[in-house]
């Protein structure tokens, strides 16, 4: 496989992972210059300013929430989970593509992961930060919530209930955040050493030097490093599957019609990867354009991501079909009513918009000319992100708003504070991403070196 990729001569523009003519030096310079250049491009300031302004909205929304209580959100009985849990699941799902790209594709020896794994991992971290924010603030008084979220010896002598999927969630999400951060940092160490050695100013040499921890590229170090990296990938793989499985169990262990389904774990995991790849495309397309990274993030990368989106989109579509089928096949009155209400009730618009975004739209990716059109891919990635948000809206709101007792039916809509919090976390996410591309290499430099033709020793017969 490796030799096919490394042989430049027979490749068309569509299937190479790196443009011809690059060597170890040019790859290093091109990626590190983005970080080390003195002048920050004007476009960066514009983007950062927008993101940072949106972040302020989050602070305002949260300050008001803490002042008044969570009544400022639209959640109320019977819809006790609204935007907060929709957004939590949406963000955490987006994060999953980062781990999939960095861990699972590494284990599967997919070399095309190399130029996108670094910023996909950063995306994971920032998405998890945005996600964690919602359940924490949904507790209303986060500073007193710790005794039932975290096991620690408190003065009240209380311990969390480990039989609750919500506690599983706390363990899954904190572990996921910690392991993603470690994986990302370990991947950064050799590149931080490159930045240390290439930075012109003394100050940056010291800053990057501290984080590079004295990395010197020793063969003995690389040997342990590679072992650690592979082991982390092997550990992150079951972890990422477990995280969205646990998230889906928050729903599936309940008896609410529309939630109590065994299809939930696989279909949530597929949906997470689907949403995550959409977000990677949303980020990669402007990034490669703005920093002229078309040499490294090629058409082949975009097309492969589109294929993963198509495949996971079909799994998600299968999930919707099984939900409807099982509602009928179960013969359960409440389940049958739930699916009928979903398709024709007051929230039917959200269900059919979801089908349009998540089932109809991705099927256009069967066509090669659409799959290789950059503006089309960008548009479809936004459509899928909207679709996945609607999916969580449909699951949460349409299931809760009409359950067993017609006397307790209700209608839900997000308030301006719900929207402010949602837009605010988008601001948080993009603020962190802008800082990341400015101060850290958005593409893994040392891994890019390994896929260069010059690194292919055995094929040349030494």
């Amino acid at each position, binding site marked *: 496989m490796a030799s096919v990729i490394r042989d430049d001569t027979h490749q068309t523009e569509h299937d190479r992972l790196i443009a011809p003519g690059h*060597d*170890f*030096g040019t790859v*290093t310079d091109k990626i590190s210059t983005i970080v080390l250049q003195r002048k920050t491009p004007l476009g960066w300031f514009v983007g950062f300013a927008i993101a940072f302004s949106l972040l302020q909205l989050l602070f305002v929304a949260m300050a008001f929430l803490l002042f008044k209580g969570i009544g400022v959100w639209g959640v109320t009985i019977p819809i006790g989970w609204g935007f907060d849990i929709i957004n939590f699941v949406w963000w955490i799902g987006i994060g999953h593509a980062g781990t999939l790209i960095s861990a699972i594709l590494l284990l599967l020896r997919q070399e095309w992961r190399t130029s996108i794994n670094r910023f996909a991992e950063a995306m994971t971290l920032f998405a998890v930060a945005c996600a964690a924010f919602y359940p924490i603030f949904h507790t209303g008084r986060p500073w007193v919530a710790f005794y039932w979220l975290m*096991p620690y010896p408190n003065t009240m*002598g*209380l*311990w969390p*209930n*480990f*039989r609750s*999927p919500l*506690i*599983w969630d706390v*363990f*899954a999400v*904190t*572990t996921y955040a*910690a*392991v993603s951060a*470690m994986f990302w*940092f370990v991947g950064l160490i*050799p590149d931080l*050493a*490159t930045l*240390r*050695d*290439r930075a012109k100013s003394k100050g940056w040499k010291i800053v990057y*030097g501290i984080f590079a*921890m*004295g*990395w*010197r*590229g*020793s*063969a*003995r*170090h*690389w*040997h*342990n*490093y*590679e*072992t*650690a990296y592979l*082991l*982390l990938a092997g*550990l*992150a793989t*079951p*972890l990422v599957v*477990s995280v969205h499985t646990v998230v889906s*169990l928050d729903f599936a262990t309940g008896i609410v019609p529309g939630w109590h389904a065994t299809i939930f774990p696989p279909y949530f995991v597929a949906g997470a990867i689907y949403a995550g790849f959409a977000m990677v495309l949303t980020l990669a397309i402007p990034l490669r354009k703005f920093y002229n990274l078309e040499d490294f993030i090629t058409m082949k990368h975009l097309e492969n991501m589109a294929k993963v989106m198509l495949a996971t989109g079909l799994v998600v579509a299968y999930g919707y079909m099984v939900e409807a089928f099982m509602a009928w096949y179960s013969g359960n009155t409440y389940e049958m009513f739930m699916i009928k209400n979903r398709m024709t009730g007051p929230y039917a618009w959200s269900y059919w918009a979801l089908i349009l975004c998540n089932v109809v739209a991705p099927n256009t990716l069967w066509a090669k000319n659409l799959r290789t059109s950059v503006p089309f891919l960008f548009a479809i990635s936004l459509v899928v992100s909207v679709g996945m948000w609607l999916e969580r809206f449909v699951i949460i709101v349409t299931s809760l708003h009409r359950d067993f007792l017609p006397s307790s039916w209700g209608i839900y809509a997000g308030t301006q504070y719900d929207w402010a919090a949602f837009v605010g976390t988008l601001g948080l996410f993009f603020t962190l991403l802008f800082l990341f591309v400015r101060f850290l290499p958005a593409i893994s430099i*040392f891994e890019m*070196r390994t896929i260069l033709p*010059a*690194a292919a*020793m055995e094929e*040349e017969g*030494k």
Partner: protein
Amino acid sequence: MKPSMYGLMAEFRTPADVVAAALRVKEAGYSKVDGYSPYPIEELSEALHFHHSPLPAMVLTGGIVGLLVGIGLEYWASVIEYPLNIGGRPLFSWPAFIPPAFETTILFAAGTAVLGMLALNGLPEPYHPVFNVPGFALATRDKFFLCIEATDPRFDAAGTREFLESLGASQVSEVEH
């Protein structure tokens, strides 16, 4: 007695050159040798006989400890310290305890992988003599290096320098302490 220098550092232009040189250095009987490269080269580690890493065993141990910590925590909290009888269900409801225990297993194993890798490599290490070599900064860009350390029993300043030069090194420099 401490030798007057850390060792001799040879610079190479291509990965194939450094691997070929590493094989010759090992053949010549040198044992305190290390290579430096901008990306992991499996052949270089092999040539220098860095085969065994204790890391997998450490990570396995970390994972088992994590599993026991997870189950132990759940057992202690739910059975001993804070037992809640809910509809007569067993206090030790182990199927429900699997997800948190799984997460602590992964957390401890991953933490061991990272800290273990750093510990085995002796990082963080702010100062190392090899950084004194002029041009060594290129070891994180596009150059490959091989260093024979002065503590090696076969080391001899003049002879070793000549030997390294004969291996096709583009430059051989003394590594000061």
